[in-house]
């Protein structure tokens, strides 16, 4: 038995000047006992916040509940002692890299059982069973640092199983999980629900693959003030709409013989830990073109961009303008190639928006061009009134827009983008794509864009490369 009910909950991250803007405002819902629920909503709507309140981590680790409460089996979460919570509710996190305290898989499981004061004599059998359940007995003595994203999330699930938690919360758990591991995890979760009557709640903005598993679809709206359980018809419609959004019959052309390669790979192989991501005999990316790179999560798209930026080791040959990337000195390389990181915070170097823009302008390879156009760009992107703001406390969408803009200003000949459109609303997306297109044309840039979000991209990109089964391939269709 595990019913979670949210009663008129309001939650805030207080700001420095004492204000309390509400991240969640008066939301209510009941997650049915023994159900498999999916919580969806746009990026930045507060899904993650809500999951952390349900798990009891907030407000301990941040924010304040300004009104209402969450009850687990009719007891407010805040009144359940931290030491008892593990058997009631456990959580799998979005970032697989920072969720383990120990060095090996087995030790992490034991650490968890020790925390729960399980008698030592029972521990091994519980570890055995949890590892078998998720089919990762072979990983038992492996270093956690050597595992792929998918493997880490399997370990995280094994930990939860060993804890015997009644309710399992998963906060965007598949962001770096490959399709095979994702299917395995989903089927194991369904098995836990059906055979052991666990309550499963997953938050995800991506609805793919879920229709076979979920019983309930909850939607949190963009401003975090309405949480609704959709009825069956609406849920079906929403799932179907999501599938459609991704497909487009737009055709792109394939590279032609006259295209000049700027990046060339021969016998390139990329690995993460012990698993191979890419084995590519031959591929080119072409000068003054915008190429889209797609593929399932965890297949190595980001890793390829990191390798191109000399931030991930590779085997074989990877040439930028005929020079081996690994051998180009950093200060030379990064004048020719720059990466728009997936995590916007990694891009920033200063404190305020104005300082960030000033730095890019100062070192831009097309300073005059941007000096003239910057005010217009800022206005279009609705960043013009934010000059004095601290970049790290902007909203997710604002961060993304500023990050893309400041990297465009650098006018680096080859610009790589890792999921640049995450968290952007429709109009921002249109605007930023138009600016990217304009700048790429005017400054003769080559762009390589990794993106899940395909909507409207046909107007921006020239070529499309897919990554599947360790291979890159040019294709004509967009989806």
């Amino acid at each position, binding site marked *: 038995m595990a019913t979670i009910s949210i009663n008129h909950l309001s939650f805030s991250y207080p700001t420095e000047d004492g204000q309390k803007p509400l991240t969640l405002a008066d939301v209510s819902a009941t997650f049915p006992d023994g159900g498999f629920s999916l919580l969806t909503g746009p990026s930045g709507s507060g899904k993650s916040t809500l999951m952390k309140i349900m798990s009891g981590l907030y407000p301990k680790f941040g924010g304040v509940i300004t009104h209402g409460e969450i009850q687990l089996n009719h007891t407010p979460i805040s009144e359940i002692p931290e030491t008892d919570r593990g058997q009631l509710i456990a959580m799998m996190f979005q970032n697989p*890299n920072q*969720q383990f305290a*120990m060095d090996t898989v087995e030790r992490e499981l*034991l650490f968890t059982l020790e*925390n729960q*004061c399980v008698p030592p004599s029972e521990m091994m059998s519980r570890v055995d069973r949890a590892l078998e359940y998720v089919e990762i007995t072979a990983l038992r003595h492996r270093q956690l640092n050597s595992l792929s994203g998918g493997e880490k999330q399997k370990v995280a699930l094994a930990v939860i199983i060993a*804890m015997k938690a009644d309710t399992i919360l998963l906060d965007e758990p598949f962001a770096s999980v490959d399709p095979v591991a994702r299917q395995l995890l989903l089927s194991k979760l369904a098995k836990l629900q059906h055979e052991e009557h666990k309550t499963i709640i997953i938050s995800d903005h991506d609805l793919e693959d879920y229709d076979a598993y979920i019983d309930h679809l909850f939607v949190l709206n963009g401003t975090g003030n309405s949480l609704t359980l959709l009825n069956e018809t609406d849920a079906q419609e929403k799932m179907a709409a999501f599938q459609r959004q991704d497909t487009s019959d737009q055709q792109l052309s394939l590279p032609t013989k006259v295209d000049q390669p700027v990046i060339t790979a021969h016998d390139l192989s990329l690995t993460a830990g012990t698993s191979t991501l890419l084995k590519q005999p031959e591929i080119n990316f072409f000068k003054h073109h915008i190429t889209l790179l797609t593929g399932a999560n965890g297949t190595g798209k980001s890793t390829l961009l990191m390798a191109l930026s000399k931030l991930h080791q590779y085997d074989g040959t990877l040439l930028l303008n005929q020079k081996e990337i690994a051998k180009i000195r*950093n200060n030379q390389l990064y004048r020719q190639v720059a990466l728009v990181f997936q995590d916007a915070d990694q891009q920033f170097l200063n404190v305020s928006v104005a300082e960030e823009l000033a730095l890019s302008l100062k*070192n831009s390879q097309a300073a005059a061009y941007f000096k003239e156009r910057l005010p217009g760009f800022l206005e279009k992107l609705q960043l013009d009134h934010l000059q004095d703001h601290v970049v790290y406390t902007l909203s997710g969408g604002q961060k993304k827009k500023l990050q893309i803009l400041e990297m465009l200003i650098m006018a680096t000949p080859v610009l790589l983008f890792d999921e640049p459109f995450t968290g952007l609303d429709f109009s921002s997306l249109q605007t930023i794509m138009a600016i990217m297109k304009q700048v790429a044309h005017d400054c003769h840039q080559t762009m390589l864009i990794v993106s899940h979000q395909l909507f409207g991209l046909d107007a921006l990109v020239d070529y499309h490369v897919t990554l599947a089964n360790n291979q890159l391939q040019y294709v004509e269709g967009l989806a």
Partner: protein
Amino acid sequence: MNPSLKFLLAVLIALEISFTSTWMVNLALAIIGLLIILTSRPPLKRLVLLFFVPLIPAVALAVAILLQSNAGMHFALVLFTRIYAYVFVGSAATLTTSVSDLVMSLEQNAHIPSKFAYGFLGAFDLLPKIVSEVNVIRAAGNMRGQALHIWSPQLYFKAILASLDWSENLAEAMTSHGFSEGAPRTYFKQIRVHWWDWCIMISSLLLLQIALFGLHLQ
């Protein structure tokens, strides 16, 4: 040997030889340290490194004494052997103990609060990520035309911001895995202090005193 006592012994030896000037004892300690290191069968590369890394400060200190003081050859030799004793005794401890064993021993035997033990361990296990994050920060600087040097505040500023973010993630995850500050825990691996641990510790220290005193009388 019990990890906590092993490290305590290594530090006590290091402390004692810092205040004494007997190169033969330093040399003997370095040799004993080396023998213990060899039992752990380290890779050859590591072993070679172990000989070369202390060479730089050791030679520097010895040459400085010869050229810049009147203390003479004997004291130069003392400083030279002292560095090797430090490094070999220290490596004898670190190469034969995993960080997690040391942490578990510190928790169970030295009764260090578990939040210190596992907080340290959780952060230590992020080491490979920290190395790549430093590279990312420097690349991010270069991509914006700003080289970040060891004297650039931004380099440290960004490192601290990453630490803030990661510490929150890790603390939340550990809490979610049932860890609670000050709460009782059970131990799968009981780490005990045996009588022979104390024997090794005390007899080692006794031997050291006798050797130092004996050679001093000479």
